[in-house]
């Protein structure tokens, strides 16, 4: 990511915007919606709020124009330049100009307005272009972006949070999150998780860019945005576990892992999983949990598992071993696992297996989201 000279940014978190005129390519309500969604991309990961003005001078004036439109940067007709925007500041600064010689659309049949204007808002907030080809702030419009699952890249998040910091209000109280809390997804019987972990007596259920927090003394879980708590972590973890003896949660994604204490990422991370003793053939971890009684951490990969000695900081000899041999009844690929109340809970798709390590047998099969008291 990159900034403008002097790292220009808004000296306040409440930014105003005004849609000065409309393109005739789309319904006005669709333009409004695309612009609101594009602003939300940035407000989701910062303390910024955006208030719409319908008249007068707003911080971000959004207008459609063609060819020479009075700012010495004429547009070039269909194709080529789609729009431009100015860094934060008074008057024309912060403003967004969109080339109305483009065919603006809600979908991808023309130039997708949400995607293009979300990029321009990055400039209006203080980001210059990024050379990270996955970043929204990469200068070239990526027609292949999956609009149904759009998310800022880590580069975008790192850049904008260097300017404005993290969201001030944890998303657990934001309206968006309240609707999500009541969102049927929480109780979807087909719910599956990327990873699960304990954390200081709570349980965390990770899914894409969200996680549910469930404490033993609350009936319902709370749904949170990962980027609100650990903004510099990638989303879509592969595995996570709490090393209770060190008050640390380790999270894994592909061949990297991070150590997190509370909301602080420990220095010196991410590290390669190979530093734990995995062979190079292992590209990612499926699931992991720490067994406090034995001071051992179990790592599950496909149908085998390793056991890591947290005292010796090394893998135990004689591993990997077959999961089904030592955990009879755990036959499916493990998505996630944690230990609770003396049992091991293995998550696989929408099912969860409760395993009694003393009796060495499966005691119950549950729905993965059985902890949410649906």
């Amino acid at each position: 990511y990159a900034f403008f000279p002097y790292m220009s940014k808004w000296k306040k978190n409440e930014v105003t915007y005004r849609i000065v005129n409309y393109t005739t390519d789309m319904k006005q309500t669709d333009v409004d919606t695309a612009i609101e969604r594009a602003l939300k991309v940035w407000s989701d990961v910062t303390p910024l709020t955006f208030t719409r003005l319908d008249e007068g001078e707003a911080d971000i004036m959004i207008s459609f124009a063609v060819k020479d439109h009075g700012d010495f940067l004429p547009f070039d007709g269909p194709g080529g330049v789609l729009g431009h925007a100015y860094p934060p500041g008074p008057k024309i600064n912060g403003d967004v100009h969109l080339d109305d010689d483009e065919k603006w659309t809600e979908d991808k049949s023309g130039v997708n307005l949400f995607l293009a204007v979300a990029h321009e808002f990055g400039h209006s907030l203080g980001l210059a272009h990024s050379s990270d080809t996955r970043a929204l702030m990469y200068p070239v419009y990526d027609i292949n972006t999956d609009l149904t699952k759009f998310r800022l890249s880590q580069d975008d998040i790192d850049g904008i949070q260097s300017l404005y910091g993290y969201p001030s209000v944890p998303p657990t109280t934001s309206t968006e999150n309240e609707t999500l809390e009541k969102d049927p997804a929480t109780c979807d019987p087909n719910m599956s998780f990327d990873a699960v972990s304990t954390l200081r007596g709570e349980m965390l259920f990770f899914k894409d860019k969200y996680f549910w927090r469930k404490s033993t003394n609350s009936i319902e879980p709370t749904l949170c945005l990962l980027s609100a708590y650990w903004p510099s972590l990638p989303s879509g973890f592969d595995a996570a576990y709490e090393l209770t003896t060190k008050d640390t949660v380790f999270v894994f994604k592909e061949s990297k892992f991070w150590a997190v204490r509370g909301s602080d990422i420990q220095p010196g991370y991410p590290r390669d999983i190979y530093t734990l003793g995995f062979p190079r053939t292992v590209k990612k971890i499926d699931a992991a949990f720490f067994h406090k009684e034995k001071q051992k951490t179990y790592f599950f990969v496909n149908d085998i598992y390793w056991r890591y000695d947290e005292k010796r900081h090394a893998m135990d000899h004689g591993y990997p071993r077959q999961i089904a041999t030592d955990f009879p009844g755990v036959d499916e690929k493990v998505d996630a696992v944690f230990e609770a109340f003396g049992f091991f809970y293995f998550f696989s798709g929408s099912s969860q297996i409760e395993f009694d390590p003393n009796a060495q047998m499966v005691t119950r099969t549950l729905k993965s989201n059985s902890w949410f008291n649906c």
Partner: protein
Amino acid sequence: YPLDPAATVGKLSMDRVQKYLEDFYHLEKNVNQFVRMKSSSPVVAKIREMQRFLGLKVTGNLDDDTMEMMKKPRCGFPDVSS
């Protein structure tokens, strides 16, 4: 040899290429730049800078990938600060 500014490489005129480098990589506006594109010319340096920023193979030449990238729709703001 003098390159005709209207000459096209992969359906992109030399004019367009020069304007791209001027607009987004602050190539000095000088008509004769393109007349002699020796390896040390500022134009080649700007082509390299663009290729590096956009994640292309840095060749200094207007190869197909580079020309393809320059035809794609994009933001009008420069890629590098002047």
